[in-house]
């Protein structure tokens, strides 16, 4: 039983990282209808930048901030150039970001090399403590869980309780109407895209502590994010929350109990959901 609880906690930790990645992905899709396939690469590069900054400053939190902010700046640039040049053509954006994966991966390989690296958590976070019930569990994972929950709550507040959130939700429903109301859609798009990239970069540094950073890590995390949006529904915040928990837990139980098919058991809920609701639990037809 303690083993099962530890696995559940591991699954939730993974769910937290997946949520940070998939919420940005789904937000960008929901508001802008842009499928940013390079989101996983942004995660990886953000993690690597965090790793380098931590190496230089010996401060984990400055690395976390650097990875997140660098990727936010990159996201802003990307939106202002490539994405806006492509003029809102869904498939063209998808293909261009597919090309971007190869560029980012290759540059990451050139800069940080091919051997996997792991980010070490500082001080107290790097140790383990005994949870009620006698389970010894790393503090770092609990930290990730708490941070992800805090970000989820923050995003919920942003989306549901602020003016920006109202604009974003309106954008998901009817973009043309939002711009007709005199709201600067360009600024909204740039904000959303930067926010998505910020979350991915942030997740990259956090993920680097438990999952490590390695060539191909971007497509692994991208698949998680995609599985989440298939289960939860493209463009839905609630879908990202529920989907992340489902996918995180299933992947972790799979790795623990059915290692031969761990990667593939992910697909069971995905197929089950698709057969019943082709557009996901919280998705809508037409997306």
């Amino acid at each position, binding site marked *: 039983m303690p083993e099962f609880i530890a696995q559940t906690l591991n699954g939730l930790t993974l769910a937290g990282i997946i949520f940070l990645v998939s919420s940005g992905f789904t937000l960008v*899709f929901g508001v802008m209808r842009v*499928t940013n396939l390079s989101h996983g690469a942004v995660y990886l590069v953000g993690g690597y930048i965090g790793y380098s900054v931590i190496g230089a400053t010996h401060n984990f939190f400055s690395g976390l901030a650097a990875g997140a902010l660098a990727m936010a700046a990159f996201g802003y640039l990307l939106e202002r150039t*490539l994405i806006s*040049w*492509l003029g809102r053509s*869904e*498939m*063209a954006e*998808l*293909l*261009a970001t*597919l*090309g*971007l*994966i*190869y*560029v980012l*991966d*290759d*540059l990451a390989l*050139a800069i940080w090399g091919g051997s996997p690296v792991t980010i070490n958590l500082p001080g107290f976070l790097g140790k383990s403590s005994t949870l009620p019930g006698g389970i010894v569990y790393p503090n770092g994972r609990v930290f990730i869980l708490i941070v992800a929950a805090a970000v989820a709550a923050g995003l919920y507040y942003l989306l549901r309780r602020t003016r920006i959130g109202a604009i974003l939700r309106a954008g998901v429903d009817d973009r043309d109407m939002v711009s007709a109301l005199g709201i600067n859609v360009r600024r909204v798009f740039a904000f959303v895209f930067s926010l998505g990239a910020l979350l991915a970069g942030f997740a990259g540094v956090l993920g680097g502590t438990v999952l490590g950073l390695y060539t*191909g890590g971007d*497509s692994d995390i*991208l*698949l998680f994010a*995609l*599985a989440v*949006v*298939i289960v939860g529904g*493209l463009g839905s915040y609630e879908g990202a929350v529920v989907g992340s928990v489902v996918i995180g837990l299933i992947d972790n139980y799979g790795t623990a109990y059915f*290692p*031969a*098919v*761990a*990667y*593939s058991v*992910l*697909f069971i809920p*995905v*197929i089950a959901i*698709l*057969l019943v609701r*082709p*557009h996901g639990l919280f998705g809508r037809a037409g*997306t």
Partner: protein
Amino acid sequence: MTSRSGASPRLLLRRLAAARRAAATGSADRTPTPGRGGPPPLGAERRSGGSGGSPPRTNTARDLLTLHVMQRSRRFLGPAAGLLTALLLVLLLQGNGFVSTLVVDMLVYAIVAMALDFLGGYAGLISLGQAGFLGVGAYGVAIAEVHFFSPWAAVGIALAVTLGLGLALGIVAVRVKGVSFVIITLAMGQVLWGLSYQWVGLSEGDNGITVSVLPTIGPIDLNDPLTLRMTVLVVFALVALLLVTFTKSPFGLSLRGVRSNEARLAALGYRTGLHRYLAWIIAVFFTGVAGVLYVFVNQLISPTTMDFSANGLFVIMAVLGGLGSIWGPALGAVVIVLFQQELSIYVSRWQTLMGLTLIAVVLLSPGGFWGLLRAAGRRWDAAIARRQRDLETAP
């Protein structure tokens, strides 16, 4: 093909003969010599004719000939290029060296890229999981041979498994389209990769499986490298011709209709879902065929053949070459294999270059390389039409 200028060659020949007769009464030395060469410098001719004071009818004769040559060469350029390419392929495949290996790789990948194009360019369903089905075909052969099936039985098993998997997964995949379809096929491809990587008992994991015994049928022994290469070429040609035939059939036309306006096609009584499903099955099956060829050519199948990067590469081939043209993606396969095998020798960051090339093509030439060729063809057609108009309005 876009519509060509109206006048038939026979009509033109008749006009040409009439013009010649008329010209014979003027200066005989201006009668053009018939030939297949490039078009004579027409503008210069016309100017000199005007200043020289010779009758304009002479120029008309030459103009007609030029027009005729242009139309003829426009018509025969495609088949001639195709024939030359076929000849070149046969020649290149003769050697046992690096070049023939490169060409065989191109042909195998081209089959996948063309199948992907049939699904993506015609049905509008871009699959980012196609390498997975290449892997299914290849692993099907390899695993069956490991379990002591004869090579032919292994081929049959591989194709049957690919087809069965396509039939089953298609039920899920073609329920959605557009971006959702890309995402779902990507997930499928990743799961297939995951199986090949993690299900060590079946797939031997990271090491992959080697295949050393190839099928033999009568006098055709695929264990002979040259026979194998020629077989790949024949299969490539068959798949290409089949796909081109499909695209020109009523089925292909209604597929395009499904892509551009599904609601209208559905209202007309077409079973649009079934159309997408059939296109999916065709694409998956031909990809499986390519997988069988792949494992025979390489004699090894390992998970890297079907990882995310490989899935992306096939889409890049199709998009670079030009979606919706079948031949374009084959060209894309050639370009990507050259990137991988040749450019990588000189440029260590060839993947960056490839990614940037894809981005540039998406930005600047959405029709891909084939789109550029088509645009050149259209310019040629326009030039022909312009000349024809000039001739018709000339005195």
